[in-house]
């Protein structure tokens, strides 16, 4: 698990108040929403805000299908990596 991936999993756990879930319980290529973790569209909204805030990035509101980045941890990690401001 990359450091960024671990950070994103921990962010999901903290932002959404998930009890009894450890980062290793979130499978990176399994859907975040729907049955698995029991997350819903409000969690998707919360997660969108948390990701933008934590990593200082903006979800491009004009791009098509912005929500597909939130499908699973892998896609979120790729999205953050691609949009993260370069660290000095």
């Amino acid at each position: 698990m990359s450091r960024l991936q671990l950070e994103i999993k921990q962010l999901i756990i903290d932002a959404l108040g998930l009890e009894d879930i450890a980062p290793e319980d979130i499978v990176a290529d399994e859907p975040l929403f729907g049955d698995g973790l029991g997350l819903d569209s409000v969690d998707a909204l919360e997660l969108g805000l948390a990701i933008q805030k934590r990593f200082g990035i903006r979800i491009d509101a004009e791009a098509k299908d912005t929500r597909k980045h939130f499908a699973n941890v892998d896609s979120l990690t790729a999205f953050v990596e691609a949009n993260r401001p370069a660290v000095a």
Partner: protein
Amino acid sequence: MNWTPLQELLLEAPADALAALPELTRDRLRERALALAGALQARRITRLAVHLDDAGDLAIALLGAWRAGVRVLLPADLRPASRQRLAQHVDAWLSDAAGDLRITDLQGNPLPAAALDLDFEGLVLCTSGSTGAPKLIAKQLRQLANEVATLEALWGAELGSACVIGSVSAQHIYGLLFRVLWPLCAGRPFLRQAQPFPEDLQQASLVRPAFCWVASPALLKRMGDNLDWPALSAVRRVFSSGGPLPDDAARQLERRLGQAPTQIYGSSETGGVAWRQADDYWQPFAGVELSQDAEGALRIASPCLPNGHVEQTADAAELQSDGRFRLLGRLDRIVKLEEKRISLPMLEQALAGHAFVSEARLGVIQDNRAYLGALVALSAEGLHALRNGGRRALIQALRQHLGRYCEALALPRRWRLLLELPGNAQGKLPQTEVDALLQAPRTLGPDCLKRHPDDAGGWLLELRVPPDLAHFGGHFPATPVLPGVVQIDWALGLARELMDLPSRFRGMEVLKFQQLARPGDRLALALRYDQARGKLYFAYRNGETPCSSGRILLGE
């Protein structure tokens, strides 16, 4: 804009009039509704449950069913338990789910166009009742017609031909009226799909020459800086309903859009009651008459209720002499999470129906989002499951069980496991205490049941290992065991409460751990302090079996 009264929607439609987007003209909608009416009649269906995401299809289904004299029931979801509860009230299910009728299956010989009967009780809404049983609310078409006429009189002129874009489902009264029936009667186009995400809402909006939003607090309080607010400020009006919009979210929207959201107060039972915009006070809609019962809860009479009916709500309010009012909160155990109405008694009964649970109480926890917390008294079977499978597996089983009764959003996220629920002097557990217990972190100490001095100058204590001790989280996830270091810590801490001991910890000797202590175990703890040697003797027993013992060395 040409207003068409609800009962005349299936009569001749104005040529080329657009009803919904993607393209559905009024003519086409009318044809499809009349064909659906014919199909329902041919199948001798008189009570139809409808659950459709596409608001255009929903409009066709409603108008077609009403033309055929078919009562439409709108379930909030398609869960097995919901279907089972409603089974006796419906002949058929129309939805996008496998096994149900599809809207494309219902194309029969069209019935002739005719006006709808306003006295027909054509709509049945399903919601959660405070007893735990689901509640069915029947509406005459007249009530719905009065709702939309009121809205049009207030805001029709300024909305003009703005496209109506919704973030909420049309299965509920608010979405149904604001996203579907009102625009249909007003000849205003509406978007068929709901847009629950801010970016999609923006994209759908900015391609329209004029637009308005039918939104919910769940969305409005979570819209970020990444949106094009200057462009979005062209929105003609922002409606918010389903639950309270926090004041700071309303103010932030006002700063960004140059317009405060228009909040609507109402419910499935009452229909629309009042509205407000940048104001603490609610303005009743035309024709609404308010009164209060002895507890201060609102009572409502209105053109959107059956004639002569006064609807008793559970909303406490403060009425002003000018007719406006402030809401003070609910008086029953119905809560709203992100505008979804949830009956705590229903979920508590469902939880108590699981073999692991003897009793359960629920409360709301306010975090980034509001969610439920569960206080669960375990049954003997539940305790056994906890001891042998761990907390997580137990809670997973309970969540799965509850998932048959409610949406994911209502599944408790915080759990506190107990052997029995506490009660006050009257044997009741007030909600404030439930909430306090859920707020508190998981316990770190033992439940101390008894303590008395022994003959030798020491103490005998009777302890119970709490089932939900925080230490069990990592020790071990699937087989919770009381860690040895915690046993020593408890012994020293309890001894300090009872005896005057030197403050410095100097070490330990002859530590023995003979038997595991597990959640729910009742332990006897013997404590004796040998002042001359500066040694605290401790010994835990479980019944006749020694668990652990040792000496803690203390000094100044």
